[in-house]
């Protein structure tokens, strides 16, 4: 276990005027488990990167000191067992290196020069500790998100770090995958742990101390979770942190839904979606739920007119042809699709241009395009970013922009795939409020989602897709168990 001491620590990335993190004084004792909070942009990830020794000296400017067990993380001798920090990031896809699971855990041990005879015992020990249920030859490509993240955690634990850093380890996972990771983490007791996580309620059982970073610099609050949330809960909730106990009142439709906009009859896509029938009317929100692999995203693509079903038919908007046969310009005037990853939908280099694409394709005159763009920038709080490159936006900003681009062509039907996925509380409330307004204005909304809060707050109807086709009949093992 490690002890962490920060004295007036700060870091400014090269070429930036503002400090990413500044004036942080912090002492974390051996074996403490800390939840690191703060509004987005407070420098949580930068602080973890510094502790992991990932901020190269030439990539920015440092202030103050940072010490793990009395030495700077960048200058540490990694051969010393039990030393150094291990870090787990958000996305399991970009943490796994090798094609076979066991090889991936061995990768870090090879890099640290662990003698070959010790590597395989340590690999199976680490896999046991996270509850990895498969043999070491299991292909990493065949793992679900939660399983892959468990493997990434095992790869870090195999190095026996004294300090375990977790940078939103469940943010890219569905609820089942996130539960797998929390189960693995709750079984670990040998490390000092620092966890960054937006979903506080789920993280609280894993920690015994909460530290809140102040965006301008310094530490705003530090102490036992109950005390910190009693004193700062309101403010943190306003800033976007999912503080437990701050629920949001539902925004259900007061009216009966209007005429049907689109209807799917027994549509299916081979290997991806079992036959399903449903319809969406004007002025209602339909939530489509279901486990991973049930074909929710595929259904969104089919109803969005982007993918041809292999069976059944979709019809709507009084058109004889199914949506996937419409020209793109026709489609975008009727149905707006919002993808799970906003960046997939960006086609220009400026936020304002991004909003102008759709209306221009519909042949609107320049003055009207300008008016639509200005109106949307204002409504979705993007005006200050009009000239920014869409790829440089934060997660919440990118999500708002992707919804705005779909609204720019004023479609009657909106199809959204996991619109609230990974969003902070503030963006979440904005999105839910916006969608409620659109619904009350007579839009039909279909949202594919894992988010129970979203369903509770907004859905007028829910359609649950069937259980996933089981790819693998192996049961999940509990962490710490022997095979």
């Amino acid at each position: 276990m490690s002890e962490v001491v920060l004295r007036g620590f700060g870091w400014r990335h090269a070429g930036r005027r503002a400090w990413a993190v500044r004036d942080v004084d912090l002492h974390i004792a051996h074996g403490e488990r800390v939840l690191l909070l703060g509004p987005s942009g407070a420098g949580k990830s930068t602080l973890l990167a510094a502790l992991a020794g990932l901020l190269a000296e030439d990539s920015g400017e440092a202030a103050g000191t940072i010490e793990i067990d009395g030495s700077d993380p960048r200058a540490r001798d990694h051969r010393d067992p039990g030393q150094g920090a291990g870090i787990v990031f958000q996305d399991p896809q970009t943490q796994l290196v090798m094609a076979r699971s066991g090889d991936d855990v061995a990768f870090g041990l090879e890099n640290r020069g662990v003698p070959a005879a010790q590597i395989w015992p340590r690999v199976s020990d680490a896999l046991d500790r996270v509850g990895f249920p498969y043999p070491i030859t299991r292909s990493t490509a065949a793992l679900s998100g939660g399983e892959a993240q468990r493997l990434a955690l095992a790869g870090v634990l195999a190095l026996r770090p004294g300090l375990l850093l977790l940078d939103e380890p469940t943010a890219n996972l569905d609820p089942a995958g996130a539960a797998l990771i929390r189960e693995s983490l709750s079984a670990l007791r040998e490390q000092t742990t620092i966890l960054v996580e937006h979903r506080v309620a789920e993280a609280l059982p894993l920690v015994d101390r909460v530290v809140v970073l102040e965006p301008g610099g310094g530490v705003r609050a530090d102490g036992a979770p109950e005390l910190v949330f009693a004193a700062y809960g309101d403010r943190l909730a306003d800033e976007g942190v999912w503080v437990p106990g701050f629920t949001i009142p539902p925004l259900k439709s007061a009216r009966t839904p209007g005429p049907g906009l689109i209807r799917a009859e027994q549509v299916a896509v081979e290997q991806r979606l079992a036959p399903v029938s449903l319809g969406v009317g004007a002025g209602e929100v339909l939530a489509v739920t279901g486990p991973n692999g049930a074909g929710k995203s595929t259904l969104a693509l089919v109803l969005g007119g982007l993918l041809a079903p292999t069976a059944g038919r979709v019809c709507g908007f009084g058109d004889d042809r199914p949506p996937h046969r419409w020209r793109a310009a026709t489609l975008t005037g009727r149905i707006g699709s919002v993808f799970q990853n906003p960046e997939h939908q960006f086609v220009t280099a400026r936020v304002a241009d991004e909003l102008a694409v759709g209306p221009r394709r519909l042949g609107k005159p320049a003055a009207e395009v300008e008016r639509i763009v200005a109106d949307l920038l204002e409504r979705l709080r993007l005006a200050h970013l009009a000239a920014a490159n869409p790829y440089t936006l934060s997660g919440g900003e990118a999500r708002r922009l992707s919804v705005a681009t779909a609204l720019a062509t004023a479609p009657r039907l909106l199809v959204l795939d996991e619109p609230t996925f990974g969003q902070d509380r503030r963006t979440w409330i904005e999105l839910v409020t916006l969608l409620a307004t659109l619904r009350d204005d007579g839009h039909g909304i279909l949202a594919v989602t894992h988010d129970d809060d979203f369903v509770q707050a907004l859905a007028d109807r829910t359609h649950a897709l069937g259980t996933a086709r089981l790819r693998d009949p192996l049961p999940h093992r509990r962490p710490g168990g022997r095979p």
Partner: protein
Amino acid sequence: MTLALEPIADPSAPLARRNPVAKLAAALVFSLPLIATLDPVTPAIALAIELAAIPFFGVRYATLLRRAWPLLIGAFGLLITMVLFAADRSGTLLLELGPFDVTTSVLTAALGLILRLFAVAVPGVLVFATTDPTDLADALVQNAKAPARFAIGALAAFRLLPLLGAEWQMLTLARRARGIDAGRNPITALRLFVSTAFALLVGALRRGGRLAVAMDARGFDSAQPRTYARKQVFRPADTALVVGAAALSTLTLAFTVALGLFRPII
């Protein structure tokens, strides 16, 4: 994409079991000298030797054909090219295709090229069909002293390749959702292709960057010497494979030189 490169051989076959570096070296020393000659007999002999060796690699001919069928397209392309553009139109006239005289010399030259294509490509296909990419990277680092930064880095990047296919499909659908399609206009289609490819590249670079940081965090490419969890050994049998391949190649060339068929490329 990985499917096309996964090993398909019976791993217990005597030559499939050989060290990946030995197999790669044998393929190179056997096939490269053959490029030195333009006659069709040398590559024909080489191809015969290669086909005879295939069972020792534990690969079935039908499996190899499924893996190597793009070569047939290449062969057909070569034939067309030679019929259209061959400079030497001597020999007996076999067929007149409008302005193009198909003569024996044209066909001989085409046959020589096609055989060379096969003789050089088959060993390469064979090596990758019988070798796991992880084993190849391990052996390159341990036996050929290739830098781990290069070999393991390439292996890690390779793992991300299949994601690109799925990403391309999402980008294409997302563009249609934004109201952008090319219809029948080839210039718009080209511009759309370029913009999609650019978005794919941006995404790939970001993912690559994140992967590099994660590898860094686990101590990759530090100054410290690595150890190897999977030991790759270069045995006498591996040396024998390389020496044997070199000997067969030399014999083939000696045979054609002796017969007076050798036509140096330069």
